[in-house]
């Protein structure tokens, strides 16, 4: 299939990109990795009148760690994280996510920020971003704002990024000491969207109780969801089989997936629980907790 005609503008600077978006408003789409947009255009489901290509803005192709956050620029490809030395030690949840998004070739073009902006209900990055308490930096004509990921994910395929705006970077707080995380995904095969997915991050206190956690599930509603109840259950609790089971059940309860070719509502709800349980177990075992199986 072949896309419908459109006007193409390759932005030479961020200001130029913003000006173009301001000019064309809702008729324009930003072209970054294009791995969701271009197939949609080939089927003529997406038919933007204007594409604003930001692939020349090398200044946005960064992944850098500064004052307590890992900042991922709008043009950083999934593969850039995947290949980043020591990411697995410093940001395990991100490293595990970066290895299972789409397929390895798509990851060499697809971007982390682009995935968040596309906000497919079954996408991967939104789940990890929720569990990791990420923030998204959005810039428009009216200036720059920083949006908590929970507010960024508005509805399926809808985010806080307005017409004329660009999401510039996503910021993942550096995990505190005695913290580990895990991303778990069930997919029918490599390249598929998640049938179910879960991200969990736990921090242990000196006394071995759980000081804090971030837990989220994907393919479980219009957007990825934070399992706040599970986070509360774990707060201050001893890391036990029982605590994990309770957190997993909270995820089962919260999950509100749509049935599709990937599975029934019943199956997906149960998988949300199973995966939250597995993510927590993996994280806690890495932190040296035993007797969880």
């Amino acid at each position, binding site marked *: 299939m*072949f896309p419908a005609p459109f006007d193409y503008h390759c932005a030479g600077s961020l200001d130029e990109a913003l000006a173009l978006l301001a000019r064309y408003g809702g008729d324009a789409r930003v072209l970054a990795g294009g791995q969701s947009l271009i197939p949609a255009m080939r089927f003529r489901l997406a038919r933007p009148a204007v594409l604003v290509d930001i692939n020349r803005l090398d200044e946005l192709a960064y992944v850098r760690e500064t004052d307590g956050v890992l900042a991922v620029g709008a043009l950083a490809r999934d593969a850039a994280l995947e290949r980043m030395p020591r990411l697995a030690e410093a940001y395990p949840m991100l490293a595990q996510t970066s290895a299972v998004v789409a397929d390895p070739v798509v990851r060499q073009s697809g971007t982390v920020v682009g995935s968040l902006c596309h906000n497919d209900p079954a996408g991967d990055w939104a789940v990890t971003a929720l569990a990791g308490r990420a923030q998204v930096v959005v810039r428009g004509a009216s200036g720059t704002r920083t949006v908590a990921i929970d507010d960024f994910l508005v509805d399926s395929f809808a985010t806080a990024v307005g017409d004329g705006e660009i999401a510039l970077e996503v910021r993942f707080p550096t995990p505190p000491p005695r913290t580990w995380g895990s991303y778990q995904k*069930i997919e*029918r*095969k*490599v390249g*598929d969207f998640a049938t179910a997915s879960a991200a969990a991050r736990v921090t242990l206190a000196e006394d071995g109780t759980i000081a804090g956690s971030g837990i989220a599930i994907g393919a479980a509603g219009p957007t990825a969801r934070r399992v706040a109840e599970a986070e509360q259950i774990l707060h201050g609790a001893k890391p036990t089989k029982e605590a994990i089971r309770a957190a997993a059940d909270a995820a089962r309860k919260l999950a509100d997936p749509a049935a599709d070719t990937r599975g*029934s509502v019943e*199956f997906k709800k*149960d998988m949300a629980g*199973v995966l939250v349980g597995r993510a927590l177990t993996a994280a806690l075992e890495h932190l040296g907790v035993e007797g969880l199986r």
Partner: protein
Amino acid sequence: MSTTIEPESEKHALGQRMKRKEDPRFLQGRGRYLDDISLPGMLYLALVHSPYPHAKIVKIDKTAALAVDGVVAVLTGEDLAAHGLAWIPTFHGYDKQMVLCVGKALYQYQEVAGVIATSREAAVDGAELVDVEYEPLDPVVDPFQAREDKTILRDDRENKTNHIYHWEVGKRAETDAALAAADVHVKERVTFQRCHPAPLEPCGIVADMNGATGRLTLYLTSQAPHAHRTVVSLVTGIPEDKIHVVSPDIGGGFGNKVPVYAGYVVAAAASVVLGVPVKWVETRTENLTCTGFARDYHMDVEIGATKDGRVTALKVTTVADHGAFDAAADPTKYPAGLFGIVTGSYDFATAFTELDAYFTNKAPGGIAYRCSFRVTEASFAIERGMEMLARKLGLDPAELRLKNFVRKEQFPYPSPLGFVYDSGDYHTTLRKALDLIGYEELRKEQAEKRARGELMGIGISTFTEAVGAGPSKHFDIMGIKMFDSAEIRVHPTGSAILRAGTKSQGQGHETTWAQIAAEELGLDPQNIIVEEGDTDTAPYGLGTYASRSTPTAGAAIAMASRKIRERARKIAAHLLEAAEDDVEWADYKFRVKGVPENAVTMQEVAFAAYTNPAPNTEPGLEATFYYDPPNLTFPYGAYLAVVDVDRETGFVKVRRFLAIDDCGTVINPMVVEGQIHGGLTEGFAIAFMQEIRYDESGNNLNTNFTEYLVPTSLETPHWETASTVTPSPHHPIGAKGVGESPNVGSPAAFVNAVMDALAPLGVTHLDMPLTREKVWRACREAATA
């Protein structure tokens, strides 16, 4: 006796792991596939498809489409009717099918109109704007519902019923009696889901009507170029000499490129009407929604046995879903293909099988997807049945099979359903498989795991195929007998050109065909060029599918070579100044009997054939042979799968898979292994993920590669292979064909393994594909039960 062929001398071409001669061009992007062909002034065709599975076509408005810049023409069913091309006969000629919808759409995505334009993009722009008004009708998507005839789908047919045909073979009364008398009895409905070959290269055509010569050249993704030319001639009335079909390099066929599709006909008609070349290359969605699907058999399998585990009778009753037209690709006299192979490798005293086929509002097809006609369905049915019987008897499934195999001294073995199996040694092959995989240890490990509540399974499939259609007294397609052919010309310097009626789609004929001829002629296979696929130059043959190439054309090549050898013997006698009877062919030379040093090579003979021919002999050195096989060949194998099941998520991990194949004489072990790896991977895909599913309102749910799941290098297991060699007694070199065995034999091995894993939960059968959810549900229901 099972032996492995070892090369006897460096000259020995047969049995060598010779690297493929076709590869250098593929490796450098120099292959020439259909879409690589571009002709001056060529136009592009895009098709318009019905979103409805069943609807009246009220009207089609071309205006907006014709107004699109670059659009040259818009064709509808009515336009084709004017040229007598609204309908074409189906594969075996028992039914006809619409090219473009005439009055009605009978399945979702059926072709409604064709837009011809100066670019691919413009053609799609135009197709978007063809305004079709539909009046939706209730769809019938379930063959069991179609059977009730509440809605008649094909009012164009004389018989106002959705029933297409009834077919049966065997002894009904005797079988029913034996089943009733059996100590032990199993019965289960086993469904082989609708799936699709989905070769990576889509189907396509470049049709080029040359006004000056009046000749229509069709570059076509065709597994059977000669058959296609004859069909086009019969349908259009264009004399066969005025039609030239060229099948270029093909990016995988697997049966998908055997039938004739709407796009071909519309492009050809457009080229004839417009007098310029027209190209159509289908989209992946068109490939999956419109072109030949496979399987969709619902089989009730019934086996009777004595309490000590001897099988006594087999009955299989099948409902077949053929979709909107009866376009199943089967030989004329075999509406259900070779389904009679359903008694498999086992010595049943009596058997009976019957089948009824129905129309539904689904895409037409029923092609031989990487298998001989309907042999995959049959093998799956019997191998699942034997597994269930073993469970019921409390017997080890390997033991049950060893108890019931046809014994090697019984060959040639007449099966109760009418085949005569050529050769086999089933016991040796299965025992070798059990040893190689360490069956005993695996069963021990399984027992320990079960004690711990873990789910591990071992699955066996010991299938027998019937391939190589086939003997002309039984096999034809639209009347054309299913022989095949070869033509060999040895050049003066001892190199040669070999042409065959088959058409490689990745099987490596350019290499293996050269190996056969080289072996027979004592020439260097590197100096034998192989050509296929051009109807102007290739001898007539019915093409490559159903594992028929080696049994038919492979045999023809050996026979043509031997014809040449006989001619060459005369020349050799002349050169050796010996009587012809004193000249023997040994160690790839002509020698004077008793005086081995007195010899000439084929090269020397070839040179003489052109420069110094024997008196009163025809100069030159070439031969043609049309081979009509005396029987089918019956390749077989013993496959073992080992799986672990995660009961929490339903995930099945295929830990090991061992395939032992016996395809008779092996031409090129490297190519054979490659074929087996590929076939096993497709079997794996069908067992666990591949399905063309329609929802209750007739929507196709698997219309592209995001939903029709092809396993990647990560999901695909590591394959272990080995072989036994039991040559075919009636094939000139003893070869049987192998390309499809792994796809025929493996699905049952995978499913049997998973069912074995779930046995402690009391699960006896699940239909493919074995998705996580299906397995998860089975585990959970067992837990709550």
